């Protein structure tokens, strides 16, 4: 330990108490400090989506534990994403409307021709701008609140949310109890209107008025003015957590969160193939439909461990929801400190989820339509790994620059049991490969 770098007792206490915070950007700085974090993510899916995402977080610490933090994010997304249609050994012609292209500015409403064995993709481009603000106020030596607000705007999707977090320390400041509440209202407005759910895809699938021949009006989302109306969803989240100083070199945290999503949870841009039950040949394409309610729960555990020179972060999350999805996420980050200024941080993340109960690779055309169906592979049983390496250089106490490279692979069931006919010879879940590069600079003055 370099004594010359050791902080004062006062600063150490203030910083350690900040380190107990459970959910917000943790700023270890003295009163009056400005902290500016700038970064840009370059995200590239092989043969699919590319994203450039600059982000800026500016924090003003105006008292020992009080701060205001402003977050600005911009996403520029281009490329193509899987539209949900099943891969086929035959050439496919998918009726395309603006609403069946992925989020954002879609191409012209012409049919999409997909080559045999190719992944059915929809081209898109979009921009997202988001702003968030967090204000932490200490009301006493052991109690503080963090009030947050955020807004995110895209061509076809807006989100506005707020949150409040209460944190109470024990007198010895070794334990922090956290209660967080959040509310968000999202509005989805697909270009051209909201598609009728589980409708056969054709040029008339959009804004087709309900013939009132069903009794499920609430879920239809196809009012007469659908073209102009946005669909909404309301998200509420509650988190309780405990953060514990275990020893001089171990800090750990355990959270439980429960959240509910209500409203329009369907992806208006995803479709699902309907195939012949014997041959597996695609007959037609339908829009998807998801339940309008989702209850999400998670346990999240994290530990930061100081080894003689290095620091290791371990985390694990168990997630489950009433769509029958369960997921395990485990991650390790190892800060390999090489001298006073330079560090390497290799990281590894493993993720595994089960599929949603209404997920189908395709529907069979000899069966009646289910209540809900989606072929969005993000709702399929899948696994994922991310390997990363970050290189950081600290210019003394005030400025740090870093570069991080990551490689993510995602894979699922290539030959699921529900495959029929020619589908049995196909890879119904093509691997996804993603490379990510992040450059970052942090300044404290």
């Amino acid at each position, binding site marked *: 330990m370099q004594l010359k770098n050791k902080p004062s007792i006062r600063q150490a206490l203030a910083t*350690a108490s900040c380190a107990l915070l459970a959910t917000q950007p943790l700023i270890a700085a003295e009163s009056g400090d400005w902290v500016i974090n*700038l970064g840009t993510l370059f995200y590239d899916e092989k043969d699919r989506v590319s994203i450039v995402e600059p982000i800026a977080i500016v924090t003003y610490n105006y008292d020992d534990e009080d701060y205001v933090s402003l977050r600005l994010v911009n996403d520029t997304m281009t490329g193509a994403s899987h539209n949900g249609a099943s891969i086929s050994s035959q050439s496919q012609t998918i009726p395309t409307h603006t609403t069946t292209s992925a989020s954002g500015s879609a191409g012209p409403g012409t049919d999409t021709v997909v080559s045999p064995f190719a992944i059915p993709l929809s081209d898109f481009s979009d921009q997202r701008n988001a702003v968030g603000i967090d204000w932490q106020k200490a009301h006493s030596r052991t109690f503080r609140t963090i009030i947050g607000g955020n807004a995110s705007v895209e061509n076809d999707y807006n989100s506005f949310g707020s949150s409040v977090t209460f944190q109470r320390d024990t007198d010895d400041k070794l334990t922090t109890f956290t209660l967080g509440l959040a509310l968000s209202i999202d509005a989805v407005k697909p270009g051209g209107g909201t598609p009728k759910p589980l409708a056969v895809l054709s040029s008339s699938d959009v804004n087709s008025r309900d013939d009132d021949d069903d009794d499920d009006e609430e879920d239809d989302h196809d009012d007469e003015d659908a073209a102009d109306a946005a669909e909404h969803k309301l998200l509420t989240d509650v988190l309780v957590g405990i953060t514990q100083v*275990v020893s001089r070199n171990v800090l750990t945290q355990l959270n439980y969160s429960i959240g509910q999503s209500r409203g329009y949870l369907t992806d208006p841009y995803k479709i699902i193939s309907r195939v012949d039950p014997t041959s597996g040949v695609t007959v037609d394409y339908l829009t998807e439909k998801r339940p309008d309610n989702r209850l999400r729960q998670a346990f999240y555990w994290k530990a930061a461990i100081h080894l003689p020179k290095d620091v290791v972060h371990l985390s694990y999350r168990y997630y489950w929801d009433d769509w029958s999805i369960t997921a395990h996420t485990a991650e390790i980050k190892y800060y390999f400190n090489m001298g006073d200024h330079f560090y390497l941080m290799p990281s590894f993340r493993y993720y595994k989820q089960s599929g949603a109960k209404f997920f189908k690779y395709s529907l069979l055309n000899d069966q009646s339509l289910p209540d809900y169906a989606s072929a969005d592979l993000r709702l399929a049983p899948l696994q994922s790994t991310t390997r990363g390496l970050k290189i950081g250089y600290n210019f003394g106490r005030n400025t740090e620059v870093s570069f991080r490279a990551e490689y993510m692979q995602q894979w699922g069931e290539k030959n699921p049991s529900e495959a029929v006919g020619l589908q049995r010879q196909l890879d119904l879940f093509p691997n996804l490969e993603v490379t990510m590069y992040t450059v970052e600079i942090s300044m404290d003055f």
Partner: protein
Amino acid sequence: MKRFFCFFVIVILFGTTFSACVVFPVKPWERDLLAEKQMQLTPDSVEANLEEHTYFSKEAASGGKGVGGGGCGCN
């Protein structure tokens, strides 16, 4: 069996979180290591934000780390 395993893991995590502090009480003057930036649970807020957004857009599971942060049409 799967549920039992998950329950077992959660009990272990709870146990280590709650019990160890009793065994190793840390005095205020012993918090030098805890004060280091890398020992914060979120040492890099930019990295955390970008990770959260990336995985939210590619996976069905989310949450657990905190509340708020903003929605997105990516999933």
